[in-house]
């Protein structure tokens, strides 16, 4: 964050005089962020590639799994995977195949990873989408209410609930909900993802609620902190002194207060990816998270490598997009564009 504040500070001090240098600084900053993200992904891909090599046991065993193999097959596999080449060449070949969309095959039943992925990605996307929508719709208003009533009973109630939400791991919440709503009051199905959109959504309500509790608690905290700070700033006092209505003041404060909430979307996403593994496992939902869990259990390297890199790429790219959009939305940048 440090470079960003530098740019903003210098811009605040003397925008007209230093216009070109500020634009240059922003361009440099954007370039740095993009390069940084690419380097980060490259390093992660090296580590993911090395997973098969540094993991215990023989590399051929890691590829073939526990089935017995003849020396002839071993030789063929060595040739097929290029194991006689240097490690760097092997990495480059692996990366090349990966970028082409050839992600290998699962050792379990030889299904291609791309097929497994396309079968499962829908459930995970829908689950995360529903949970995220529910969390934002409920948490942002709660965070604002808590900030407006800071120190009051309602604030304490909301704050304590958000601590409980943050302290409750999704699998624990999931199990409790599973018991209450599938057994005690049997209104929801306990496992599976259903058929067709309506049925799938119906199957996803409980898992999405579980996921939303954790994410929501996090967003409540962020919103509350940001809004408390905004409501204490001078412009709110002045606006009140001028007799501007509460509604308008709150709307303005929310527009400013929501910025730090948006900039932490990368963290929220990272949190959701971690939780979706747990939630899918709890509710036996056939999504990407459960696929990852079972492939780790069976040491299905192709699948584990693909999913790890996929999740890392999504998180890194979303963080980058958020950083860049923040720059694009900053008043200074808009001012530059208008000129």
């Amino acid at each position: 964050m440090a470079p960003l504040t530098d740019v903003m500070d210098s811009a605040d001090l003397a925008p007209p005089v230093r216009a070109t240098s500020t634009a240059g600084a922003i361009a440099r900053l954007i370039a740095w962020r993009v390069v940084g993200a690419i380097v980060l992904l490259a390093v992660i891909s090296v580590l993911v590639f090395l997973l098969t090599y540094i993991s215990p046991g023989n590399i051929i065993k890691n590829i073939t799994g526990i089935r017995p193999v003849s020396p002839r097959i071993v030789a063929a596999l060595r040739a097929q995977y290029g194991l006689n080449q240097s490690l760097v060449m092997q990495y480059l070949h692996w990366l090349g195949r990966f970028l082409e969309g050839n992600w290998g095959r699962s050792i379990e039943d030889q299904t291609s990873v791309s097929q497994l992925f396309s079968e499962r990605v829908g459930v995970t996307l829908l689950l995360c989408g529903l949970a995220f929508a529910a969390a934002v719709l409920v948490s942002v208003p709660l965070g604002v209410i808590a900030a407006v009533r800071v120190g009051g009973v309602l604030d304490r109630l909301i704050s304590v609930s958000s601590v409980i939400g943050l302290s409750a791991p999704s699998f624990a919440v999931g199990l409790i909900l599973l018991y209450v709503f599938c057994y005690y009051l049997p209104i929801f199905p306990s496992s599976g993802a259903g058929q067709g959109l309506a049925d799938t959504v119906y199957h996803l309500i409980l898992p999405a609620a579980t996921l939303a509790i954790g994410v929501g608690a996090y967003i409540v905290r962020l919103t509350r902190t940001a809004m408390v700070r905004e409501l204490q700033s001078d412009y709110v006092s002045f606006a009140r002194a001028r007799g501007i209505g509460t509604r308008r003041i709150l709307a303005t404060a929310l527009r400013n207060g929501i910025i730090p909430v948006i900039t932490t979307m990368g963290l929220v996403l990272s949190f959701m990816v971690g939780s979706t593994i747990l939630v899918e496992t709890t509710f036996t939902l056939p999504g990407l998270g459960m696929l990852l869990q079972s492939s780790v259990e069976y040491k299905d390297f192709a699948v584990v490598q693909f999913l790890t890199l996929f999740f890392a790429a999504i998180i890194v790219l979303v963080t980058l997009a958020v950083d860049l959009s923040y720059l694009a939305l900053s008043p200074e940048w808009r001012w530059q564009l208008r000129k």
Partner: protein
Amino acid sequence: MSADLLTPAIAAAPGVRVRRRPVTLVACLAILGAALFAVLFGHLLFPNATQVNVLASQLPPGSPGHLLGTDQLGRDIVALSVAGAASTLIGPLVVAGGSMLVGTFFGLLAGFRQGKTDFLLSRVTDLLLALPVVLLGLVVAGIFGASYWWTTVLLIVVFTPYDIRIVRSGVIEQVTKPYVEAARMLRLSSWRIMFRHLLVNLWPLERTNFLLNYANAIIAMSALSFLGVGVQEGTANWGRQLIDGEQILFSNPAASIAPAVLIIVVACAVNLLADALNADDRKAVRP
């Protein structure tokens, strides 16, 4: 919304809870005291907690001699939960302590030296922060078949970046203060300034961060046990109890609900303790 809605926000001091009754603090300490008792004496109270008893399999809650029933291996849920406190709570304590030590060292270095050291450390931090803890833990510990203590070490590595960041920002805030300048004027060595002068002033930050990390580590480690990583089958452990118990959720719900509630309650107590101490601190600083 009425016009007086905004008044409390403006009247109250930054982020301060106006009047905090010590009820929360006492409740948290009581819960953590009970947990500590279970960690220290659980194995003495229930030495046979993990012993399989096929004859008493899947008894429902309220069965004679088994208040919360038994699991599919006939192990008493109360005994298993008390005995499980140790493996559920000690590892995370080591994680929080270890990441605090390592994070403080590198955070001080990054914040005080800045320049190249800071750049290098920040990039390593970015790398580790790009992946969720559960995913990293699952993939690395799962593929390597890590033992309990190796999983603990892995989590220290994964948690340290957060500590580095927080200590670093704390140091950067402190470095401009007159006492650091005075120490520099006296030509004290930078190691002395870092570890004698700055460290003392970072204490409130460290304490809160340690508690938050402890709560997160409890959650992360039980999550990994729930995914079948880090804890051997048959060990008394709350996360492990959850996967075993999920299979018999409808015949004995207590088998998984009890450890679920225990994890939530202990993690909550640690988090609320951090909040309460924080609020006290702010009160103390303000005249």
